[in-house]
């Protein structure tokens, strides 16, 4: 059986988790799939049934209110053993990427990170994952009896496939955990995380100053997207947080649509966005490398083009 570690956000299952669950369902055929939820409250986990969970396992308790990697790893590993699962999937979210390798080590299992394709060969997972910052793809075959993989958000589709979703609970293991998240220094006003965004409007050094990012926000609002940035823009001291950076040393994103404005297309930037389904480049330099990647290119001044795009998008009411 495949067990999927799912995350809830504001009482709803994260899209990236639904994608992992759907993929588990697709891989499993008629074999059972279980969805695992861990937290102070697992309200909202029932929706896993809609996306193919035969069983829903809730591990709830006040001890799980704050994230502790060692405690969460113990909870997840216990669930794998309790269900006799041979494969464990989870979305490659910040939490998933933190905990899943630890779980893998606990289970003496191989771990493939940020996979973009999965198959079952015999009874074992086979994964394809980007390496060298997306410049190549590795096919990974496991030999361990349990296999663990994190799925890259926005790559697998979340498809409804209703199943029974029988709910069970497992106890919180008594773990004397050694580290815990004490507080979250919130910033960025709760906008959607870049890695899960469908549409990204990104700006680079060509924006000239931080205040001009307003142009990107306006367009993003008009087409239902979020704003990202190149490292040059983040490093320029424009007040753009590193959490918005796309690229090799920032976030790796795979949105449906990526609009690069005033970004030259340096290899380290491309590493973070070449998995985008459709790429648009707006740049005044016709030789900018970003055009090699772009499905649609506009050679022009972004200060003229962006307001026109926003105006036209508003006229079409494209925001979802």
């Amino acid at each position: 059986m495949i067990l999927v570690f799912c995350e809830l956000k504001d009482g709803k299952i994260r899209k990236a988790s639904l994608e992992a669950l759907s993929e588990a369902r697709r891989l499993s055929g008629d074999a059972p799939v279980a969805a695992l939820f861990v937290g102070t409250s697992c309200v909202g986990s029932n929706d896993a049934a809609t996306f193919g969970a035969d069983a829903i396992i809730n591990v709830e308790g006040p001890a799980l209110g704050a994230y502790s990697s060692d405690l969460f790893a113990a909870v997840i590993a216990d669930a794998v053993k309790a269900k006799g699962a041979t494969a464990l999937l989870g979305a490659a979210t910040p939490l998933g990427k933190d905990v899943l390798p630890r779980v893998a080590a606990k289970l003496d299992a191989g771990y493939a990170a940020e996979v973009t394709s999965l198959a079952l060969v015999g009874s074992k997972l086979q994964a394809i994952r980007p390496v060298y910052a997306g410049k190549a793809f590795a096919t990974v075959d496991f030999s361990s009896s349990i296999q663990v993989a994190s799925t890259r958000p926005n790559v697998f589709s979340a498809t409804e496939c209703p199943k029974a979703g029988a709910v069970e609970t497992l106890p919180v293991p008594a773990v004397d955990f050694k580290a815990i998240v004490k507080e979250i220094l919130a910033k960025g006003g709760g906008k959607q995380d870049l890695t899960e965004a469908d549409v990204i409007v990104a700006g680079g050094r060509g924006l000239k100053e931080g205040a001009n990012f307003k142009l990107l926000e306006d367009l993003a609002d008009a087409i239902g997207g979020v704003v990202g940035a190149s490292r040059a823009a983040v490093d320029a001291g424009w007040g753009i947080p590193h959490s918005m950076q796309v690229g090799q040393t920032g976030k790796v994103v795979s949105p449906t649509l990526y609009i690069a404005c005033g970004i030259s297309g340096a290899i380290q930037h491309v590493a973070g966005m070449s998995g985008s389904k459709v790429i648009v480049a707006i740049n005044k330099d016709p030789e900018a490398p970003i055009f090699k990647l772009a499905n649609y290119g506009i050679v022009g001044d972004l200060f003229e083009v962006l307001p026109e795009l926003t105006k036209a998008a508003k006229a079409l009411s494209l925001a979802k």
Partner: protein
Amino acid sequence: MKILVALKQVPDTETKIKVAAGGTSLDPADVKWITSPYDEYALEEGLRLKEAKAAEVTTVSVGEEKAKDVLRNSLALGADNAVLLKSTETGDPLAVAKILAAYAEGKGFDLVLFGNKGFGSDNGAVGAMVAELLGLSQANLVTKLEVGEGTFRAEREGDGGTEVVEGSLPAVITAQRGLNEPRYASLKGIMAAKKKTIEEVDGATVSAAMIVSALTLPPARPEGRKLDGDAATQAQTLLGLLRDEAKVL
């Protein structure tokens, strides 16, 4: 205080990736090898703790003979000792973690520092795996680290923003950009490093949990289309294409 910093030798991030005959690995011809960029932050943090708290810094790399360059560089930057755990690349993070854990076990390190991922393999797994294998606390993607008496406080890049992780030592910390600005080696450091010995130990024999069975290049993206006209026309055309041709809006 004893600090272990794990370093990985990786292809330069500008490397044009070519697949070796056999189709499972990188063609090493023309590759320039460097210390994985995130590992530089880990090493710098170790060196700063050495300066602030008189810590002893040992660097370690799992790899082949050529990985000694990375270790030599760490000595030039100020590491006290360097150890090569000889092993051939398997592409399996768990195998690497086991070799590192076997080495570190019982040596009394208070901190084990890593980059948050090795460039190239991009697994971001070895640090957390070593933490698990040695039963240590962990904080990944750390951008700020404070070390107290038997405890640490780390700021890390989490979901909603910066998370503050507190835990006990010994701990595994994986470094993210922003943690510090790595120093450059001084000429004096480079000269001194030439005289130091790099300890060579056979890495523990471990079986791989997975292998890379194929390495392929992504399909080239089809030639794009440049849009004509003035800004207003380009904007109209683009939105039309995104909606009707690409169907992404």
